[in-house]
């Protein structure tokens, strides 16, 4: 974990802030999807030597790997949670009478849970789109770390 956070910071080019891991100093839009930095880790200065550019590219790659894994975890969490919430509707409807009662006027709890499915779906869709945009931004910054510096001649 330590290495990955260091890599995310190392992924920046020399003209980017090296403490980018701090949430309130994240250069992209939205919250830093890599989370807060690990204290005590400082990014080494990037110079234009071949070895350090290779190092920066390795660091950038590690940062991208970290972003991909974070996104995978988010997808698993959202998919599992939403699917379980969905299953509650047919199970409660078909096998119990829990949703037969009235919520408002003629509107039964079954209808309320049905429309909650749509609300959940749309909220999750927009939540994921916002998070994915933040991941995109993190990936852009990480790539800038490997391609932003000057190449050795």
């Amino acid at each position: 974990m330590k290495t990955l956070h260091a890599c995310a910071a190392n992924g920046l080019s020399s003209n980017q802030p090296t403490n980018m891991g701090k949430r309130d100093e994240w250069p992209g839009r939205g919250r830093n999807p890599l989370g807060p930095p690990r204290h005590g880790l400082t990014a080494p200065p990037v110079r234009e030597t071949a070895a350090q550019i290779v190092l920066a590219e390795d660091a950038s790659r590690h940062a991208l790997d970290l972003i991909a894994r974070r996104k995978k975890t988010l997808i698993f969490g959202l998919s599992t949670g939403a699917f379980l919430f969905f299953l509650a509707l047919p199970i409660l409807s078909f096998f119990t009478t829990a949703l037969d009662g009235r919520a408002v006027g003629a509107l039964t709890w079954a209808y309320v849970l049905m429309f909650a499915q749509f609300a959940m779906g749309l909220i999750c869709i927009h939540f994921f789109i916002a998070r994915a945009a933040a991941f995109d931004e993190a990936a852009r910054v990480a790539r800038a770390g490997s391609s932003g510096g000057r190449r050795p001649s």
Partner: protein
Amino acid sequence: MITPLFFALIIVASLAITWWAARRNASSTSHYVAEAKISGWQNGMAITGDFLSAATFLGTTGAIALSGISGFYLVVAVPIAFLLLLLVIAEPLRNLGKFTVADMLATRFPSRGLRAVAAVNTLLVSAFFMIAQFVGGGLLIQLIFGIPYALALLLVGGLMTVYVLFGGMLAVTWIQIVKTSLVLVTAAVLAVMVLGRYGFDPLALLDAAVAAFGPKVVTPPHPPTWARGLDALSYQIAVALGVAGLPHVLIRFLTVPDDRAARQSVAVAGWTMFAFLIVTTIIGYGAALVVGPAEIAKLNPAGTLAVMQLARALAGDVFVAFLSVVVFATVIAVLAGVAIAASGAFAHDLYTNVLRRGDATDRERLVAARIAVAVVCGFAILLSLGARDLNLTFLGSLSLATAASTNFPALLFTVFWRRFNVHGAIWGMTTGLVTSAVLVAISPTVMGPDAWFPLSNPAIVSTPLGFAACILGTLLGRESTAPRGLPYDEILLRAMIRDGAEPRRTA
């Protein structure tokens, strides 16, 4: 008199779109995926169009009109289906795929055997879906326009073939967009007319329905036996997971320029479907109150013509004529989308990559694609002509259950499981396909009351079996004998982040 005029207008408009698209359809990329230049909102409308078949539009409304809230359970899995489509499929498929579902699998497992299995699977799922839509659409058009079934089928099939053959994916997408807009506007107008009778208060409409038909119209269905309950649950699972495995829905994500547009597509489709389903509920209860369940069932026992009857009662014959033409456009647009997916599996996967081992010029690929369109459409028309009197309700279930049991597990594991291998993919897809088909063959829909398997929809059994076969195949298969594609880390990176570790292209 007015019906032929609307009919001519819609045909001229769709042919104009096809002519416009045909001028841009000069390569295999433009034919299969419209050069990946479809925008997010356009693709979202087209995805909604794929869902808005005549069965969804007329069938769901009719079911609500006849049985109230029970009818709404036909579409209640749509939100989770869209969400899974976004989370699990949209971006990975966009970032790893090219023309077909098999292309995505081949990025990790470049095996001709797997590609052949995936292509056959796509062809069968599409065939089940297409024949069900063809026969249902043909009968519906026969009923609405009063023309012979064979003529209805030839008309629908002929137009669909022209759209796909010449216009490719661009024509199919724009015809879907136009059709979706027409369906949404028509349904919204009807819903406003219904609500106008109840002071624009949906709760007042619901109260009136309860007052007229009793509380059963707002009470969820309670199947009389456990088997019937499991069957209903199985249908929900088939829709929830099957949509994310339907080839004609999946290839839509290959028509957009980047992952951002793929995500936007699902958001647009989610909102439009949500709006449509609210409107459908209003129309369904409106039809029950204005026309009456007895009148609806008298014309069609499944309530398929409830929307038409409501339109005649509220808006007159001109609106009914317009609605009939919209239904006609709906049938053709959905079929065209399925036809292009099936022809891609036939020409791109089986011919170009399995038989020719990828050694074909772009010209040859385009010719193969067009021949495949003609073959697929011709077969579908012939099969549907002979299937008029068969009970084909099982085909819709079979198509969704097969998609949920084959494509969904294979695509999911390809992106999200490091150990997954080509054997797991082949085992999983084959098992899902065979178990779905066998279970439907011995189900009550085919065998009647003496069926060996008590459920009409097999997804609750075949989907876990598909997943289990993926896992077993992976654990038991010998990895060393299989050809290797990109390593898993690269697959995950490319699936999650556009361009993987390479510098980002501008979209």
